[in-house]
């Protein structure tokens, strides 16, 4: 069950410049709910990578989707939800069907020439989160990122 009555929420336009709003927004929520500092960096990185992927891919018309209705609002909604032993980040966008978790695992390169220059965002998201889930519902992509907290979160007054 979520601890706070209303989630801490951020609405972003689907452009890369909007990513700069994530850290200040997250820090405000972190301070408000007195969350442990050691998790802030990792959660910020998860949100950043997931949102950057949405901006780069979810609004590109996929192959074979020429007749799909175009996204209207083109906004991304990010919510921070407190649970008693974890925090959950929900990211919802109105782009085309885009499941970031379908990205295949990347092979770890051993030399500079083998190293890939793309496809690093989702491995980071997997590496720093404890549970990821995706669903398509009502015309929205909905991604849930769970990060366990080592200490219990105090209930906000």
């Amino acid at each position: 069950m979520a601890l706070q009555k209303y989630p801490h929420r951020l609405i972003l336009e689907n452009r890369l410049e909007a990513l700069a709003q994530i850290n200040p927004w997250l820090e405000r929520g972190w301070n408000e709910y007195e969350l442990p500092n050691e998790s802030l960096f990792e959660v910020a990185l998860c949100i950043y990578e997931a949102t950057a992927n949405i901006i780069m891919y979810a609004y590109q018309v996929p192959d074979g989707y020429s007749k799909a209705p175009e996204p209207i609002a083109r906004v991304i909604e990010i919510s921070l939800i407190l649970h008693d032993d974890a925090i959950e980040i929900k990211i919802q966008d109105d782009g085309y069907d885009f499941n970031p978790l379908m990205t295949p695992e990347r092979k770890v390169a051993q030399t500079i020439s083998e190293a890939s220059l793309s496809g690093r965002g989702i491995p980071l998201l997997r590496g720093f989160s404890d549970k990821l889930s995706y669903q398509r519902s009502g015309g929205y992509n909905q991604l849930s990122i769970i990060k366990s907290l080592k200490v219990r979160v105090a209930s906000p007054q």
Partner: protein
Amino acid sequence: MEIKTSVISADITMVSLTGSFDATGADIVDLEMRKVARSGVNIAVDLSDVVFITSQGIRILMMTAKIANASNKKLVLIGPKPPIRKVLAIMGVDKILSIYESVDAMAGNGRL
């Protein structure tokens, strides 16, 4: 993100980055690092004042390392803080590029 370059020896140029190494301001960092790499020197990237790094930042490091590698030069990383180091490890960057605690540690190694 701020970027400063300084020549520390005949064939090593130091690139010092400060702030968040992400998509914001990445174009300028990308351009500057490519310029250094194309000048045919080894590159030491000082990450000690970097507080945040994303896949975009790592992409720029790898691209610069590839350019340096094409002229048989190296790119090494200096002084990443623990969270940054963890990102580098998850991405397998530490298997490809040498990471030193400090400039002194790099110099003590005798080579890049």
